[in-house]
């Protein structure tokens, strides 16, 4: 008997002891979150506009991310200032990124560099898919302006450009927006790499990028 057959047999035998009162897959509209809606947790936020961006900025800052604000007109200056401030010389970007980068930095478009090659870049610049204000979270979904996961992981400094239309208030709103991306690799980022493993005190800076900087564009 294969492991699969045996484990499934055990499960069915175990469940045969109890009456199946719980709705199964496909029932109640097929969504367990829907079935649990009787419990009415918040699905839609109530913070919008400038207050939403302010909330995102404050939550990002609270977890030690750096935040800059820009408009379409000032984006180039903000990117340039951010990179200059950290002495950046080499930049790696995903193939579909369309933002103005300063001429003082050598820009490489990712074409499948090795992890060791990526380790040599000073910064990675990406866009984002969604940002969640309540938790200070940025989600990358591997779209061409965000690239494969390795490029936003190995360089020690991640500069992420978020536009105001990408910002939602609550986690359930982000999950809803990402439903079409569910099959793609997703990375949820809330502040720079951190650990609480020594006496449960939070320390920033372990294996992921030790600097996370976000430019919010309105």
């Amino acid at each position, binding site marked *: 008997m294969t492991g699969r057959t045996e484990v499934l047999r*055990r499960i069915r035998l175990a469940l045969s002891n109890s009456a*199946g009162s719980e709705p199964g897959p496909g029932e109640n509209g097929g969504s367990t979150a829907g079935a649990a809606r*009787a419990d009415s947790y918040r699905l839609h936020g109530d913070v919008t506009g400038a207050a939403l961006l302010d909330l995102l900025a404050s939550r990002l800052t609270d977890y030690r991310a750096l935040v800059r604000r820009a408009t379409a007109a000032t984006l180039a200056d903000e990117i340039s200032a951010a990179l200059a401030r950290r002495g950046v010389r080499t930049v790696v970007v995903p193939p579909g990124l369309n933002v103005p980068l300063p001429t003082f930095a050598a820009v490489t478009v990712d074409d499948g560099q090795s992890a060791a090659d990526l380790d040599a870049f000073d910064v990675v610049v990406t866009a984002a898919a969604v940002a969640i204000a309540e938790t200070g979270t940025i989600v990358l979904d591997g779209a061409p302006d965000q690239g494969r996961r390795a490029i936003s992981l190995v360089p020690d400094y991640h500069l992420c450009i978020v536009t105001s239309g990408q910002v939602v208030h609550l986690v359930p709103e982000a999950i809803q927006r990402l439903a079409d991306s569910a099959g793609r690799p997703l990375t949820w980022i809330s502040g720079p790499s951190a650990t609480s493993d020594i006496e449960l005190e939070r320390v920033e800076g372990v294996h992921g990028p030790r600097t996370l900087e976000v430019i919010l564009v309105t």
Partner: protein
Amino acid sequence: MSTFLGLPTAPAGVGHLRQTEPFPRAARRALADTQLRRNLGKATGHIRAKRAAVVAELPDWEELRAAGQAIKARTMAHLDLYLDQLEAAVQARGGTVHWARDATEANAIVTRLVHHAGADEVVKVKSLATDEIGLNDALAAAGIAAYETDLAELIVQLGHDRPSHILVPAIHRNRAEIRDIFVREMGDVDPALTDDPAALAEAARRHLRRKFLSATVGISGANFAIAETGTLCVVESEGNGRMCLTLPETLITVMGIEKVIPTWADLSVFLQLLPRSSTGERMNPYTSMWTGVTPGDGPQAVHLVLLDNGRTAALADPVGREALHCIRCSACLNVCPVYERTGGHAYGSVYPGPIGAVLSPQLTGVEDNASLPYASSLCGACYEACPVKIDIPSLLVHLRARHVEERRRLVPSAEAVTMAAASWVMASPGRFAAAQATGRAGRLLSRRGAISRLPPPLAAWTGARDAPVPPAQTFRQWWASREKGNGA
């Protein structure tokens, strides 16, 4: 209460799940370690305050808990269907699914996959499932070196130690002890390393960087697996998880069968409940999700090992089954007055604390972890803290009843014998007076107003508490002398 007897449907789990000695004996040794108690008191106190603050921020926390509970109950009731659905979705995206009846089979599957990938070393994301099955030992026996990359797991591995907490396996170590372990074991560390946590994190980063960049096989657990989409999800903080999940060519994920959740939308609930309950953060720094193989991005060989190892035995108990709802946040450990004083090692299993006391005995069969359901004062703090509302105190009582029922069929307990004897003594005034006179002899055993050790068979009572010293005279003697003194 329905009483569930025996394990009719599935064999018990094997691996690092069993006590080698009863909890009271292990706890007594832990309680004598003042350094351990200081480390635990400081760490759990800190995390309790952080958790309380971020939970209070959410106006719908109780609704989220109820939703989490409902989703888990529904999942368990149709576990076979959801696993079937998960398997099909993972395979449709180019992943391979394996099924393991127990720890031994899971270890054999992983070992074979690593050999097949041509690797003699692997990098690991912190995973309780792989701790449970003793994967590192099995790989070592096959000539494969497993490198733990989570900071706390690294501390445990370098210290030749055992994990003592679900979230922070090295919670029993303070910064000075960790610094000493690093200097002694890392080999490539500056002896001038301080015990500043930031410096220790930096040392771990340097130590593991080369491993991450060159590893060809990564091994992980999973926090959630979505049946509807085939998506696996790992929640972490340091970025070691992203490294292991992204850079190697082969990724092997070992996951308990109870970790499946039905739909993508269900993540809305769990990604709010878990980080706030676990590290006391609004969101953990990194969450990775992947669905089978993505060409050009991450590992191109993706495996999922679905592990039973006693879980179907727990599922067969309609009451005890609730322990399988656990999302491994560790909030119940951090609020538990027993855990705070004894630490995790006293529980003997990789699942310590209140949830371990109800989960481990069900995975192994109650007789193999018989003292764990009693390792609690039933204060209820764990139930209040649990993000999926597992009623741990009721489960503890349920498992105590199961244990008693199983024992009753074998031998009469010391308690039953004592009660029968007491009944005989109390049935006659003469026998009662004689017994009281004998009891006063107990004063000879007392020190500082209490008796801390009674002779057998009463020793079990004083094993965990003091007995009061019998008074110098009984009430009936005092009453008789008072009547004489009053001349009434």
